């Protein structure tokens, strides 16, 4: 009786953990990134700069950790039941890459848990390269640290939210430019704040926007 109670409590909290962990982590890392971005001019010590430059490793590390956690959870849950145990050692004959023992399980976790993480990392690196070259040719679009900021934000929004993150940046560039011209008489807007507002919008309304724009097919 007690064991069953403990088991259902564990399942309840593990469910909550799996459900809320990514959301809470992404919000926390987003707030930390904005905080560091705002303070970047105030600190010039090497430790701060080192952390700022390598901050991208945190969302990458988390993505890999979460995919690993889900893969391990899937393994243990299938392994617990005699009926589903067979899924672990099955050969996936439908695919040339996975036609060996454990092939189906490897295919399953790659497709369901790892692919979106790998795509997120890939598009974030591509975005970083784009910003890097854009900065070379149009220096005035950027203040110091904004290329790194864009890279980390792209990692935070992930796939498929990245697809709506990009047009939102342009939308916020226009909105913020108009506000700056009207109220501050400033002619230039860099990409920092538009990227932050775009990422915030995606974090809050990403799922709804994906549905409204019928982009659900991009979800993996």
């Amino acid at each position, binding site marked *: 009786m007690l064991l069953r109670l403990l088991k259902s409590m564990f399942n309840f909290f593990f469910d909550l953990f*799996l459900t809320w962990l990514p959301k809470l982590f992404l919000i926390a890392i987003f707030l930390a990134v904005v905080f560091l971005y705002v303070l970047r001019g105030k600190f010039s010590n090497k430790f701060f700069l080192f952390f700022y430059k390598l901050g991208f490793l945190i969302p990458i590390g988390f993505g890999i950790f979460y995919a690993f956690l889900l893969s391990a*959870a899937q393994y243990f*849950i299938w392994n617990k039941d005699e*009926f*589903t145990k067979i899924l672990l050692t099955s050969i996936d004959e439908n695919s040339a890459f996975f036609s060996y023992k454990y092939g189906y399980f490897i295919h399953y976790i790659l497709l*369901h848990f790892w692919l979106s993480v790998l795509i997120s990392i890939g598009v974030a690196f591509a975005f970083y390269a784009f910003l890097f070259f854009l900065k070379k040719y149009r220096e005035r679009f950027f203040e110091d640290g904004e290329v790194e900021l864009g890279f980390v934000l792209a990692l935070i929004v992930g796939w498929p939210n990245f697809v709506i993150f990009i047009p939102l940046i342009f939308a916020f560039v226009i909105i913020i430019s108009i506000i700056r011209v009207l109220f501050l008489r400033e002619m230039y807007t860099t990409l920092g704040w538009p990227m932050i507002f775009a990422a915030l919008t995606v974090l809050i309304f990403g799922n709804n926007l994906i549905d409204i724009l019928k982009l*659900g097919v991009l*979800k993996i």
Partner: protein
Amino acid sequence: MTSREDLNGKKSILIIEDDDFLVTTYRIKFEKEGFNALIATNRKEIMSALEKEPPHVVLLDLMLPGISGFDILEIIKKNEKWKNIPVIILSNLGQAQDIERGKKLGVVDYFIKTNVKINDVVKVVKKYV
């Protein structure tokens, strides 16, 4: 016997899932438990299965080729004939927004595949038939 039970008096479950291995596992398991397991993997098959004979319960995967599980859920809940069929969602990632959306659309239960044994799914399905 209700009109939806087959000739052997079995309750029917519509399993909407595109993974062949999982489909086979669920089918065998539910048939072993005395259900008539119907399988659908895409929109055409889903609509055809629902129109032919509304099942007692639907087990719905959220990620399907070409259509989202939520779209299917909306179709079911908007149709007078099908709106009272209990729908149970099975998802790979327990995203908070997805759970909330599923509840709003009227799902009776929600499972994250990484945290549920097939026997627990069967127990819950039996609760609703």
